[in-house]
């Protein structure tokens, strides 16, 4: 394999990994605060893709208008999910919330199939993301470089929010102890809602970048990315934001390079994530950057 081709794969891998990272952050933040695996997160990502199709194809909106609108709609959907499926179970056993999450996921998938049919639709073309650029013998879509840069900026912003703002301090407090956080005067429902806002917003951004790479939109499109990004979050240490980004990139890079070096294994691309998960759980159950202590499921 020549250097150019290797660089090409490297770039693709980091880029796919950045998309995984965006979705993985949502899993890890919700888990960090509620100790809940938000199984419906991948479906929120799927719904964001449909919102874009409706906005641009059905309502003929320009991209600059559709973009903030679909991010907003996805955030509203994420908040609705939290209010209706998780908030009523705040004091219930953790297993009940988990089952509610699985139910919500099925609800989204079946609702989408019922409303939008199972026939794949094409994601609208966003020229400034899909345009192909050539540098030497390497060629790539613009989205390939935008994704990692965007993820880096988002990571820096999120870390500043969590570690250096009052809201971030409240998030860290709520993640350890609901009751005592309440005694401090923190409105914990708001703090929890804020994590869903961030997670859903990032899922919406992820769906736009995803749509530029893989333009097929269908009701179950969130399942595999959802599972993989959950694996990425666990791999990096669930609850840990930089861990989710690292996990996403390692996963994206790993599966891309695997297929590049061993073309015969192309069919096993999706299996790679789960092999990584199993190995990680055996070797280092708390993930790469996870805390040592676990009182979590």
């Amino acid at each position: 394999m020549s250097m150019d081709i290797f660089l090409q794969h490297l770039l693709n891998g980091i880029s796919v990994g950045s998309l995984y990272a965006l979705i993985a952050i949502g899993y890890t933040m919700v888990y960090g605060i509620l100790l809940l695996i938000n199984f419906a997160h991948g479906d929120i990502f799927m719904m964001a893709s449909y919102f874009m199709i409706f906005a641009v194809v059905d309502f003929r909106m320009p991209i600059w208008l559709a973009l903030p609108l679909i991010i907003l709609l996805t955030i509203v959907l994420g908040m609705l999910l939290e209010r209706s499926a998780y908030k009523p179970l705040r004091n219930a056993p953790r297993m009940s919330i988990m089952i509610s999450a699985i139910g919500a996921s099925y609800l989204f998938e079946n609702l989408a199939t019922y409303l939008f049919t199972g026939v794949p639709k094409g994601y609208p073309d966003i020229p400034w993301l899909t345009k192909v650029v050539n540098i030497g013998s390497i060629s790539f879509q613009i989205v390939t470089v935008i994704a990692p840069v965007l993820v880096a900026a988002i990571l820096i912003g999120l870390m500043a929010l969590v570690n250096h703002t009052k809201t971030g301090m409240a998030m860290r407090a709520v993640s350890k102890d609901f009751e005592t956080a309440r005694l401090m005067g923190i409105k914990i429902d708001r703090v929890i809602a804020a994590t869903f806002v961030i997670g859903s917003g990032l899922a919406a951004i992820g769906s736009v970048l995803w749509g530029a790479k893989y333009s097929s939109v269908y009701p179950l499109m969130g399942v595999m990315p959802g599972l993989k990004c959950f694996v990425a979050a666990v791999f990096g240490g669930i609850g840990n934001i930089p861990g989710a980004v690292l996990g996403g990139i390692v996963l994206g890079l790993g599966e891309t390079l695997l297929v590049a070096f061993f073309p015969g294994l192309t069919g096993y691309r999706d299996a790679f994530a789960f092999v990584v998960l199993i190995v990680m759980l055996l070797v280092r159950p708390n993930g790469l950057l996870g805390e040592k202590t676990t009182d979590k499921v």
Partner: protein
Amino acid sequence: MSNENILEISDLSVSYGGIQAVKEISFSVAEGEVVTLIGANGAGKSSTLRAITGLEKPSQGSIRFCGEELSGLSTDAIVEKGITLVPEGRRVFPNLTVLENLRIGAYMRRDDLTADIEWVCGLFPRLKERSWQKAGTLSGGEQQMLAIGRALMSRPSVIMMDEPSLGLAPIIVQGVFDIIKEINKQGVTILLVEQNANMALKAADRAYVMETGKITMSGSGKELLENDEIKTAYLGKAKKRA
């Protein structure tokens, strides 16, 4: 000392499922007082404090703060009115630094905290030395100081403490009671739940004794210290032969 009741509890009951942990108790705390609530394990002391802060929903009764009904309000709304609880078992946020724990105690305030942090660090010099340390790495006594300091940061008019001396060495316990007196002198009303009846009764203006969910005795701290039943049941002294 004013005679105005800042906190007035009447006919308060708290139930867990079918079990009634607090049974129609009534008591009051006047502004500027130190009032203590003593009683055996499981008597319902913590449940009472938790009901006052809205962490448990009372099944009946009223809780008035400066004449205003509190039952039914959310915890954040109650805390905002100026009542705070130092919870049983300290419950500092282990993943936050000492300084952040103090700051989060003042979560609802929007004004400058510098003076208050100075004040709390003056009361507990140990906290100042360790302000950058994660609270989870503090010793038990230091965590208790932090929990009290954190509660003070909200500038409460009433501070409730649930067994602040639990698990502390005698010398530290003395320190905690000194602080309680000091805080009270600075104008904060105190409702203290304690197992250490001897120290609590000495520090208190008035005291109530709770047994299996009911208040069975009340009086000034001094009266109860000299009461024979109290002596046998809570102060570990043998009953005098009649």
